[in-house]
């Protein structure tokens, strides 16, 4: 038995969960949030970050509960405002690694303004946006990423609105690292998160995830497993996508590193340069 206990104790995931309270989680069994959380933990572990120097910020939603379970400085804020809090935290303490966990409703609906401005500033925050096409926590209402025509409790006859492409939005707004992966591709997601954390500037990782409880059920996509399999079929790596026509790409999810700019300056660095220049002028 001892070996099983030891193995359990050396489990990398367990070593990042809060030691004293808080499990089991509020998430439904099979929710994609768990896969994203594991990928995030492994990415952080691979990078050897000091737990004390990480601040995890989130808003409100199922997704946004993630930091509460993780043994870092965690800031579970108001709906949509995670990036605004994170901007304050990073700017106040630039030496800290600030990672934001946010949902599609949190980041792109109520928090849309903060999202584009965090991208524009190119502040060194890693934003992990878990896109499950729907509002999970409030019971399956439409979100800015709900695909046109698909069903939610507030689009009972099919969504008449159009969806945001979060990655294209982030790139256009000035984010200097943008990537997308699905929960079917956990190892690739882990690598993408690692690169995003290492990147100096605003980085967005859009993680396509399953809310089988609401989105899956309302759109007849089956349970967690069949939804995750669906992500496997829909994903097209960015290199392959370049060889495909727009018709072939319709309904597909383009994955991988979509954009990287290492020339654009980072906001906190820029502020520091201004302060240093002022001191020099004195």
């Amino acid at each position: 038995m001892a070996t099983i206990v030891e193995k359990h104790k050396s489990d990398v995931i367990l070593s990042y969960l809060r030691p004293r309270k808080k499990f089991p989680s509020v998430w439904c069994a099979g929710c994609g949030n768990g896969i994203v959380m594991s990928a995030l933990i492994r990415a952080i572990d691979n990078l050897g970050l000091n737990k004390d120097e990480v601040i995890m910020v989130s808003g409100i939603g199922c997704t946004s509960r993630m930091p509460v379970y993780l043994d870092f400085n965690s800031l579970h804020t108001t709906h949509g405002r995670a990036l605004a809090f994170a901007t304050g935290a990073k700017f106040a303490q630039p030496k800290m690694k600030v990672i934001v966990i946010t949902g599609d409703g949190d980041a792109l609906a109520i928090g849309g303004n903060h999202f584009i401005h965090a991208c524009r500033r190119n502040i060194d925050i890693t934003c992990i946006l878990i896109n499950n096409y729907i509002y999970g926590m409030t019971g399956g209402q439409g979100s800015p990423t709900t695909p046109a025509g698909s069903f939610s409790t507030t689009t009972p006859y099919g969504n008449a609105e159009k969806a945001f492409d979060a990655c294209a939005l982030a790139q256009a707004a000035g984010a200097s690292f943008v990537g997308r992966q699905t929960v079917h591709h956990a190892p690739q997601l882990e690598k993408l998160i690692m690169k995003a954390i290492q990147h100096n500037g605003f980085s967005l990782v859009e993680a396509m995830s399953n809310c089988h409880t609401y989105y899956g059920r309302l759109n007849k996509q089956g349970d967690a497993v069949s939804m995750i399999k669906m992500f496997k079929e829909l994903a097209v790596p960015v290199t392959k996508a370049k060889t495909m026509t727009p018709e072939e790409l319709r309904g597909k999810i383009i994955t991988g590193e979509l954009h990287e700019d290492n020339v654009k300056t980072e906001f906190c660095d820029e502020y520091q340069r201004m302060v240093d220049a002022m001191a020099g002028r004195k």
Partner: protein
Amino acid sequence: MQGNIACVQGAIYSGMRFFAGYPITPSTELAEGSARELPKIGGRFIQMEDEIASIAAVIAGSITGHKAMTATSGPGFSLMLENIGYAYMTETPCVIVNVQRGGPSTGLPTKVSQSDTMQARWGTHGDYTAIAVAPSSVNDTLTETIRAFNLAERFRTPVTILLDEVLGHMREMVTIPEPGEYQVINRIKPTAPPDQFEPFAMTPNLVSPMPAYGEGYRYNVTGLTHDTMGFSTNRADEIFPKLEKLRNKIENYTDEITKLRVEMMDDAEIAFISYGTVARTSMQAAAIARKAGAKVGSIQLYTIWPFPDKQLIELCARCRKVIVAELNMGQIVHEVRRILPRDIEIHTVQRYDGEILTPLQLLQKVEEVM
């Protein structure tokens, strides 16, 4: 120096090193002054995309260990309120300056008002106890700002400074205090080792020590009602003490927080009760009335919230009449009515046309009620 700039100076004296804001008349000079001064002294200024983001950044700045402030005016204060509630719930010290203008809505951007007085007490949803202070001169603005920061740090709570358009833009002589001249209070840091640290512990004075993120105490901060470890709870036996803590850590110390200026009240038969710039008019009117032989006094509320019930009841015990003067349709008068005995007549002077009250208007009221 201008009132708004005196506020920046007071904040810097108190150790403010982080300001996040969004411009709005008549508070804009607070952002401009902070943008100019903070980088010179190792502080940080950021102009956020709106007021919601500004207060969010200020709260996060405070949790990472800085004394932090934002400034706004009516419409911006309304936008901030959800996150101000977050600061109450998470017990995060910070200072919010509301340079009041006429409303509702965009109202009167360059006109004076005191119509956010109740909003500073009850603006955000839920149950909590608020601290708000109100200076009446430019010099006061500097010293009350220092007091606001001290109260915020002492009680781990947001503190609102209520200025008004006239005070924000008025210029008067100000003496910048020497270091050490005023006490500056800093938040208490934990001494327990991190593995025994309870971030929202019930201490004897109900204020829990507060580490900064990055100092080795990794803990959870949430706006959900939480237990002493900072984890959300639905248990009545954990919810009740948390909310009682928010209330009692302030209400048990009202005497320490209350500040009044009391003039000519020893034998007064009629008392003015007022705050902000109106208090100066009241004081002047009382002095003029005295010269004419009327026994009029003045009580100025420097602390508006928590309301100084006990002190006012004692001070007004020998008065027959009080006159509550304010630049709104009647906000503080409700508090005065709540606490004073029925045999004291309560009169009001209210103005809400964007103009200030003059001593003449107050003297007319004295004559009318005498």
